């Protein structure tokens, strides 16, 4: 009766045991979660963005609740490359999960330096965060296709690691952005980072976030994310790492049908510590119920009207 289900997926050159990867910035380096979860059961972890120098991030408040979503303006707080290499990466390696390392910079040189430093490490995928809305130059990279192409190509030269290029949804054409990443040599695009938003406290007449604006994530953005994933799937020949508002296994199926080879789960982790293990269990159950022997069969199977 109980069909054996293959949850593994292929994302460009990488094979993941299941499609559920923790989204960067919502899972640290995995340290905190190991207390309540077996990290090895995850498809992988996209670890918190690392920059060349340590960053303290933005002043608080750094989060605001919105309808079915949240704004954040953490501002890439991280201990910097040296500390990362000395302390975080060894931990991650010993924990034994599939490591996607998100990297962020202000210049092309920053990205190159970070990728070079990661090239000979245990990191399995480098994810170029070209889209953080909470730092000065964050959006400028991701919003301009020529820059996306340039930085991707520059990083491509210094590492043979699979490259996922994470794009901002705050653009007129996500397909053009993805196409630029492809031309630069990306192995996949990660879609979507957060939508730029503002929340206001009308009593104090101030933005709630100290950074004024922040990035919107959570179920509120899911329809936009699904649309962008499908738009890129239909127009650009490149694997997609889908994300934006995934809370359940059904959401994962929707992203895969739209064209995602694997997904990332972000905000859900913050509300439900067991979100990802639960999603993985439910994926297996759903596949059994629906008679889907290989989950990866679903990728891109959305039938448009």
């Amino acid at each position, binding site marked *: 009766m109980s069909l054996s289900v293959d949850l593994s997926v292929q994302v460009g050159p990488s094979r993941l045991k299941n499609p559920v990867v923790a989204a960067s*910035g*919502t*899972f*640290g380096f995995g340290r*905190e*979660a190991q*207390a*309540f979860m077996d990290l090895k059961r995850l498809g992988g972890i996209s670890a*918190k963005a690392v920059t060349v120098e340590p960053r*303290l*991030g933005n*002043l*608080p*408040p*750094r*989060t*605001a*609740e*919105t*309808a*079915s*979503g*949240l704004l*954040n303006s*953490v501002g890439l*707080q991280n201990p910097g490359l040296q500390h990362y290499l000395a302390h975080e990466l060894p931990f991650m390696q010993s924990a034994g999960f599939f490591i996607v390392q998100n990297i962020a910079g202000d210049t092309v040189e920053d990205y190159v330096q970070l990728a070079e430093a990661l090239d000979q490490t245990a990191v399995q995928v480098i994810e170029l965060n070209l889209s953080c809305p909470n730092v000065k130059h964050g959006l400028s990279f991701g919003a301009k296709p020529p820059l996306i192409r340039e930085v991707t190509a520059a990083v491509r030269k210094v590492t043979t690691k699979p490259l996922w290029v994470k794009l901002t949804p705050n653009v007129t054409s996500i397909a053009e952005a993805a196409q630029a990443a492809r031309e630069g040599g990306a192995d996949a695009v990660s879609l979507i980072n957060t939508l730029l938003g503002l929340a206001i406290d009308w009593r104090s007449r101030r933005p*709630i976030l100290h950074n004024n604006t922040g990035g919107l994530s*959570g179920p509120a953005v899911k329809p936009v994310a699904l649309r962008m994933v499908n738009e890129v799937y239909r127009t650009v020949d490149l694997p997609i790492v889908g994300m934006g508002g995934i809370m359940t296994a059904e959401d994962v199926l929707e992203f895969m049908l739209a064209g995602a080879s694997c997904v990332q789960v972000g*905000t859900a*982790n*913050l*509300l*439900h*510590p*067991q979100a990802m293990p639960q999603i993985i269990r439910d994926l297996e159950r759903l596949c059994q119920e629906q008679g889907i022997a290989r989950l990866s069969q679903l990728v891109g199977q959305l039938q448009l009207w």
Partner: protein
Amino acid sequence: MTQVNQSQLRPDGAGLNQATGSGPLKATSGQLEYAAEVVSCHQLNAGTYWLQIYCPAVALSCQPGQFVNLSCSQFLRRPFGVAQVDRAAGIIAIGIQLKGQGSADLAASRPGRALSVLGPLGQGFTLPQPGTEQLSSGSGQPPLLLAAGGGSGLFPLLFALHEARLQGCRTAAVLGFRSRDRVVLADSFRAVCSDGLTLATDDGSLGVRGTVATALAQLELLPGEPEGQNVARAGQAVTVIACGPKPMLAAAASWSRSRQYPCQVSLEERMACGFGLCRTCACQITREGRTEMLRVCYEGPVFNAEEVFPE
């Protein structure tokens, strides 16, 4: 002003975890989220509620100053300091001040309501240890825990005073309110303060006229204390804990500093997860002369006062 029924707490402390003073531990049970149930919810005064939740795992391991993050009608959970614990009955209690929709929803809970509880979260207060400190101070008197609180900050102090008292500390509290009719839990606090409860009201309608800071400054002059003499008699160990609005914390910190009392303050910050993942709850902490952004939910909410308010 309603007194909380303390009957569920066994007065002899039997069944209570006596290891409180050993410093808060991270939950290592491998679980963090619990399906819990509302036992009761009643109003303390206009705008303040007392919510009892059946959640044995949290009741068992929760330390004073730790908090829980509760599901409610809104997208995010809501953090509340644990105000009372009945380990034997498996019940925790929190005080809720109405603020927006989340607190209102929780305050409207009826018995039997299912809640998802994350907890116990964060690092709580380090309470004085009668055994060791008594020896070191050489005074023969148990150490004194002095709690300063205002607003929603007073609730977790009740738990801390209760635990300290059970462990044999002397206890005192200074609580600030806007006016007489906003005073809550005075009798509950009185019951856990061996060395006096001082109330302050902004309008002077009860106790000291002024803020917690005013009351702290006058503390020596209060009835029950010989004039000019400190609540902590010369040479005795005093530990100050404070929870409430930032200016009050600053006042408690500077009052403590001038008397060389160690002081711990409990911070609040907007938070998304409450258990260390997202770093949205960052606060500026000065350690070894360097500013760090630490997590209120993980390294905090309790910090040493001098780390929060460096000189």
